[in-house]
């Protein structure tokens, strides 16, 4: 525990006065380390009462390098109180309050060097220079904001226009939608009507077809059994009606992995996990496995092996595989959003079927054609509705986004900027997502999707947060904060990873050049 903290705990304190004060009052207007605003609290003609009111001490105890007050107020100019502050005037630049522990520690903390009056350290007064620089910087910033604010106004205008446009679009779309739905309903009832007729007419044909198909299937089955038994007998060298490993070891077709050997593993694969098979099992279990290989051997059938190989390679690189999956998933989303509904596939198949067996009588054919046309019209109508709904959702989502107080960020939505460092290309798609791609190839890694504005309360629109990126190996999901500053050009200035899997982007844009905002006037309002 630090003494000053300890002493704080006592309330019954009295002094044993046993020495005389020999302190000579100086005629300084305020004690060292006191700001002008606090100067009246230090009156050399009176005893000093600590700011917290707990103790009153002779004024000679102020700045005598001994901490008397719990709150440190008696030692504004020394390092005696751990919880005190030293005020540097820093004429020519900004004033500064530093912790008392930085007084006379050999490090120049105040630009006027007043904090090092007894440490032996000679500090050069750099306030003029720093002040000049600061003013120049403030000037630069002010000019930047001024120039930027014009561009910002344009962005606001465009943003508002974009929003209005979207709102109008939305209205129009809603209207379109109700019309489209009406059309769709009409087409649907028409379709239903015609299909009922078609069904009736096709019933006869369907039954015939079904019979034909069953007959064909039975024939195929018998063929298959015959063929399999032929093979069985061929392999069953000793004719004991049981195939063993010894018997198939010479049959190349059993060499599934094509390593030139038929091993136990392979035979087990074909034998349903046992060492031998009888005829029945051969027909039911072995043959279905063997047939494709035989066909492949004869060049009749292209096995799926190649494809499997590709998959295995991909497994080697989990990230890539994952990303491929994602991309596919992405396509699926688009598909369902836009067009190609699943039942259309079915309909096409039906049509194809109809084409193949184009043996209806004229009357039936006519009904079929009418129904087909009705289905086509209906599905077109349905697609139109879905398209409109998708557009509505998109616009609604955009309208729900917070594009800044004055819509100044609206036009940036969906726009992308890239930044390259030695290893990676980073891409920020504003209000969408952040990605990283290695220059050595490999898939894009998501560093986060648009989350929210995350600046401090007084400056909410200074930081964007993109969250829920791809999870780090053995760690959290990646996320990115985008720190926005005023700049005449919209661009990514830097990308770093200060914390593991937490990326930080510096992004400049005129949209941030808000002259009315404190940041813009920070320098100019300060005491210079």
């Amino acid at each position, binding site marked *: 525990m630090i003494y000053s903290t300890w002493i704080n705990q006592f309330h019954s304190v*009295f002094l044993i006065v*046993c020495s005389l004060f020999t302190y000579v009052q100086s005629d300084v207007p305020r004690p060292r380390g006191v700001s002008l605003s606090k100067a009246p609290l230090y009156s050399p003609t009176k005893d000093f009462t600590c700011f917290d009111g707990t103790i009153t001490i002779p004024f000679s105890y102020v700045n005598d390098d001994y901490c008397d007050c719990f709150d440190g107020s008696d030692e504004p100019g020394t390092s005696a109180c751990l919880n005190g502050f030293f005020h540097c005037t820093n004429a020519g630049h900004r004033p500064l309050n530093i912790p008392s522990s930085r007084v006379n520690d050999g490090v120049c903390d105040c630009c006027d060097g007043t904090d090092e009056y007894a440490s032996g350290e000679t500090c050069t007064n750099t306030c003029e220079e720093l002040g000049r620089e600061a003013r120049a910087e403030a000037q630069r910033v002010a000019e930047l904001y001024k120039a930027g604010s014009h561009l910002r106004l344009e962005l606001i205008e465009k943003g508002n226009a974009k929003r209005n446009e979207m709102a109008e679009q939305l209205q129009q779309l809603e209207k379109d939608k109700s019309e489209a739905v009406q059309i769709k309903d009409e087409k649907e009832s028409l379709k239903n009507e015609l299909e009922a007729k078609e069904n009736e007419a096709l019933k006869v044909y369907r039954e015939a077809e079904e019979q034909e198909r069953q007959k064909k299937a039975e024939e195929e089955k018998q063929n298959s059994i015959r063929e399999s038994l032929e093979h069985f007998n061929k392999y069953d060298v000793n004719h004991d009606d049981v195939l063993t490993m010894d018997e198939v070891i010479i049959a190349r077709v059993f060499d599934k992995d094509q390593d030139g050997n038929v091993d136990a593993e392979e035979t087990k694969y074909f034998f349903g996990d046992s060492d031998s098979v009888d005829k029945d099992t051969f027909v039911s279990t072995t043959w279905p496995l063997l047939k494709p290989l035989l066909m492949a051997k004869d060049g009749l059938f292209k096995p799926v092996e190649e494809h499997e190989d590709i998959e295995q390679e991909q497994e080697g690189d989990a990230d890539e595989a994952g990303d491929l999956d994602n991309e596919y998933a992405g396509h699926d989303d688009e598909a369902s959003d836009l067009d190609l509904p699943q039942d259309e596939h079915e309909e096409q198949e039906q049509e194809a079927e109809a084409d193949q067996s184009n043996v209806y009588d004229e009357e039936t054919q006519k009904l079929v054609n009418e129904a087909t046309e009705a289905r086509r019209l209906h599905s077109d109508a349905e697609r139109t509705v879905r398209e409109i709904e998708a557009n509505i959702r998109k616009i609604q989502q955009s309208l729900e986004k917070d594009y800044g107080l004055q819509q100044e960020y609206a036009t940036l939505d969906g726009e992308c900027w890239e930044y390259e460092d030695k290893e990676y290309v980073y891409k920020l798609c504003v209000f969408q997502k952040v990605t990283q791609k290695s220059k050595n190839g490999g898939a894009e890694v998501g560093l986060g999707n648009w989350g929210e504005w995350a600046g401090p309360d007084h400056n909410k629109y200074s930081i964007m947060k993109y969250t829920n990126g791809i999870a780090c190996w053995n760690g959290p999901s990646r996320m990115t904060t985008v720190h926005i500053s005023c700049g005449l050009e919209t661009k990514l200035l830097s990308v770093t990873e200060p914390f593991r899997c937490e990326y930080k982007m510096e992004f400049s844009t005129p949209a941030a050049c808000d002259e009315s905002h404190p940041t813009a006037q920070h320098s100019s309002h300060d005491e210079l």
Partner: protein
Amino acid sequence: MKTLGLLLVAALALSGSYAVDKNNFKTCDQSGFCKRLRGFKPEKSQYTLNLDTVLVHGNVLSAEVNTVDTSTPQRTVLWHYALRLSALVDGTFRVEIDEADPLYPRYRTQLALKEEPKADGLKLLSNENGKLTLANTQGQKVIITAEPLLLEFVNAAGEVAVVLNDNGQLVVEPLRVKKERIDDDEANVVDVQEEEGTWGENFKSHHDSKPRGNEAVSLDISFPEADHVYGIPEHTDKFSLHTTTSGEPYRLFNLDVFEYDLDSRMAIYGAVPVMYSHGTKRSAGVFWHNSAETWVDVVNYADSTVVSSLVNLVTGGQKRRVDARFMSESGIVDVFVFLGEKPADLFRQYTALTGTAPLPPKFSLAYHQCRWNYNDEDDVRGVDENFDVHDIPADVIWLDIEYTDRKKYFTWDHLKFPHPAEMVANLTAKGRKLVTIIDPHIKREAGYFLHEDATEMGYYVKDKDGKDYEGWCWPGSSSYLDFFNPVVSKYYAERYQYDNFPGTSKDVHIWNDMNEPSVFNGPEITMPKDCRHYKPPQDGNDGLAAFWEHRHVHNEYGLWNIRATHEGMLLRDNSKYRPFILTRSTFAGTQRYAAVWTGDNAAEWGFLAVSVPMCLSLAAAGVSFCGSDVGGFFKYPEAELMTRWYQAGAFQPFFRAHSHIETKRREPWLYEPATTALIRDATRRRYALIDFWYTLFYEHSIDGLPVMRPLFQEFPAEEDTYTIDDEYLLGNALLVRPVVEPGVTSVKVYLPGAASRTLWYDVDTYHAHHANGYLTYDVTLAKIPVFQRGGSIVPRKERVRRSSALMADDPYTLVVALDINGTAQGSLYIDDGETYEYLNNKHIYAKLTFEPNAMTYSFIDENAHYPTRSWVERIVIAGIKSPPKTAKLTQAGKQTALQMTLHKGNDVLVVRKPAANMAQPWTINFTY
């Protein structure tokens, strides 16, 4: 810093478990010699001293010892051995048993002893009835029984304190030629029975070729009437050692153990084969001077696990005795026996042999901030600045392996650290330092100067066939410098020259990690035992005699590494500045060169708790400069654990926060402000006591006593203290009981010294407690119990600044805690904090005494001075019953009346601003 385990982290994350993979490390049964020796239980020792050969010369008795086949009436002599018993100063004896004429020289550990031990006189008092009685000049005796060989060490009080070979487990396996047949005394040819594994052993996929066959040594050591034994770090077990008969022995074999276990006798990074016994009767100790793999069995007859028939047999049922048995894979029997009266005497005797830690540079006792890794120069700058933004003091920023150019030590990653010198200058501007890591594995990469030099000059450790040994470590394929070759050590030392390691300066210090050595693909993650090390060429030493095997030297390897580093750092400025080195591998003597941390722990309460017994054990074994990774290396510490760890670490000698690269960042300001504030408070406490710590380390460098010490060191007669290892003393003044339990509002604290009516003052409130054993003490999240002993004076610096260097001239607050007689003493050491000038009398070593009538500050070293600008700003006197009326300071003939404030109800008197300068003695007189 870290282990191979990074590669396993993914697997762990899946299984969710955190534990050592025991399969990677041998059990006694899997270690050929341990199994062999542990199975060896002779009824009676075969080793017999030949009384006709006894010769006492100077401080040495030498004699021939033979193994005799007592089962034959002829009493066939099996083998000849040479025994040496030396009397050394300060009540220490040394016993060496080697083969009389070994096939090739057996390895004698080279670096553990700081110098040739100093001789005492040795006199043969009597030689009768098959017993020799000898005495040194201190009144301690050795009684040697010839048959079977038995050595009893009698302390100054006339009591047998240590007995060697009482259980007949002395073994020195003779070196043999493979498939040898030997002649016995009567010229009969006797076939040697070849046990399996004699000429080769396997462990997992590794084969140890064992070209010299079996060469193990063993000895049992008994401590009659002892209650406990301690020592043989480094383990995660309790400070007081357990009986091992029903499980594994304690293992001493320096290993990089990924996610090491708690409460385990498994070997980890360090091995210091020193053991102390203590009890109400007496204390004693032994140092087993051997650098090979060693296993130690312990039997404490008071343990409930020891079967009563054995207790009756050995101790006559009185349950007060501890037996230990040391088993080493190679070397000779070389054991030092300490006959100190008290534990403190033993600690002194041990450090007299192996050395004390030299005075460390002052900054190294302050707070260290480490992480694997600070990414780049911006990161370092940011961390440095944040300490100031959050007003938390810090002295050192550390760089782990990622600062290098792809793990090539003595190089920088030029993209991440393009301007190391500027980065260092930025730190030193505020009095801060940098520590960079340099591991002993060398990347095998064409074009890397170190690898090319080492390959060309033959500087690497060789494999069993004499080719450069290649292992796998951080850089990938790596080789290991053979520091045993003085040319290699010199070459290595020169790598630390500023020219050879650009960007470094006197303010850059070194961390030698992975120096067990860690070899990811080696047996037990270390170097194969049949690798070859340099041995000075000597006539007749060819073939197997031309080199040492790694098995002989293993535990010493890291010591050779840090010794070369130490040499290199001294070279940098012509031995002007004191180096700071941190090592992970530890052996006897490590303390002479480096501080030690407890390796890769985890952010778990158990690891916080075990940091205390681990460091106590190391401190007793000479390594006072010890600490654990604050916050835990693996995993992430939540706020409470982090807070408690900072509070504990602030009161442990080596105070460094560190973390694994895969864990969430955890610098103090990344927690909630309330937690940051608690961490700030804990860290400031350390800085306020920085001169107290510095004084303790100065005193340690002189007397060798642990800085962090067990309670029984100061209160040896107090039985309750013997098993206490969750609290400890700093010097003799502060008692620390870190809170290592989650969510508690009170803890049990033991206050020793009831017999001497000791007072203990809570350092937060100055409230005095009479020592009376255990009490339950209230704690908050802001508090851990720390007490100042009544009768002590502790110097403090209340003006905590950004770094300890910036506090050098600051004034002192002297905290006087009065004993029941109203008196107190303390000491204070002051110097420039970083150079060796203190050895030229440029320092102050002063005594502070408080008597009711006067407080004085006087120089213990009267010839030594240092022009400090520090002064006394405040004297706090706690426990004052009748306050004085006046106080008057006298310094350099000048008198000043002082003002005092009494804090009533707490008996605390504060003397306001005496302003006496500390460069000169002073006195304050009180009148009542």
